[in-house]
């Protein structure tokens, strides 16, 4: 049996990329501001 046939393909678990997380979190924050949950963000 060839070594190649023994190759095991380990499937990586699907994960959101850093960029996608940044978009999700930013959009969620924007929706919360739009919904009036956060009315004023001080600076």
């Amino acid at each position, binding site marked *: *049996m060839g070594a190649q046939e023994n190759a095991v393909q380990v499937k990586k678990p699907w994960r959101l990329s850093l960029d996608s997380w*940044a978009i999700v979190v930013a*959009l969620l924050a924007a929706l919360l501001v*739009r919904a009036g949950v956060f009315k004023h963000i*001080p600076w």
Partner: protein
Amino acid sequence: MADVVVVPQVKPVQPALRFLRIIPGVLLLAAIGYAGKLLEQNVGAYAKAHHWVFPNIEYVLWAILLGLLISNTVGVPEIFRTGVATYEFWLKAGIVLLGSRFLLGDILKLGGVSLLLVAIEITGAIAFMTFLGRVFHLKPKLITLLAVGSAVCGVSAIIATKGAIDADDEDSSFSIAAILALGALALFTFPLIGHYLHLGDRAYGIWAGLAVDNTAEATAAGALYSDAAGKLAVLVKSTRNAMIGFVVLAYAIYWANQGQAKAVGNKAAFLWQKFPKFVLGFLLISVLATYQFFNKEQVGALANLSRWAFLLTFAGVGLRTNFRDMRKQGLRPFAVGAIGEVVIAVFTLGLVVGAEKLFGF
């Protein structure tokens, strides 16, 4: 009998544990960023009350300086490192939220001009860095990494290209160190040069976005000048980032044709894989703002949220910059990077001044 393949069992880290691990570092970023903000407010007032002549130092610079001080003296303890590495997440979330301050028309107008400038900058920077690398007898793949790093977008472009052209780890760490060191220098020199030349906010912002390599440093260099310059720097830098896929694809095809990298299969999938997705989030929020999905107060709240996210980013920029580590990487790649960056900075400054006269922005 069939061969038995033993696959080492890698214990997956639980999501809750991963989340807990980032908390100390994120708190450190927040503490440093907030300390920067307090220093901006209080040092100026204290100096004024005591009739001292003291320059007005913005929170951006205080946060970076505090981070640099910690990183280059006591160092960043292990417990904080995972959380400190999230500074890039805060940067991208901040950029997406900043989209609320751009109307689509502004993006199309400024984006069109910046796309033209970015195309000229990328072509010129790659050509010059390649020439310079050959003069200094650097290894060909190291030249590619330095050219992509200085032409497109710093560390993420180098990492994307490294995988696509099968470059050595050593070459990529050389390039990353050179780009980071030069980015740190740009933070301090660009605002000084901008003020010396009396550049307007728009011209300076476009210049910072075109010439400073890493997105975090470009954002900081813009914000150090003014709020308006910071906005423009982010827009132009994001346009540069959007080009990453095309440049990496071109180099991947070149090195595959040389027989020194894997051939690229589906080119459209390759481009999508390399495309910085946060740019899409930025455009989406901008579209929502353009069609008045948010009222004026809500746009103000989103802009402040974006500032808070950038505050953590600026603290992270200081914390991850370690001059001792950079010195270890050797002089030649740094020299090539430094000469290249100076020439690119002068070249892009000329481009911006010319475009300002031509397009009147």
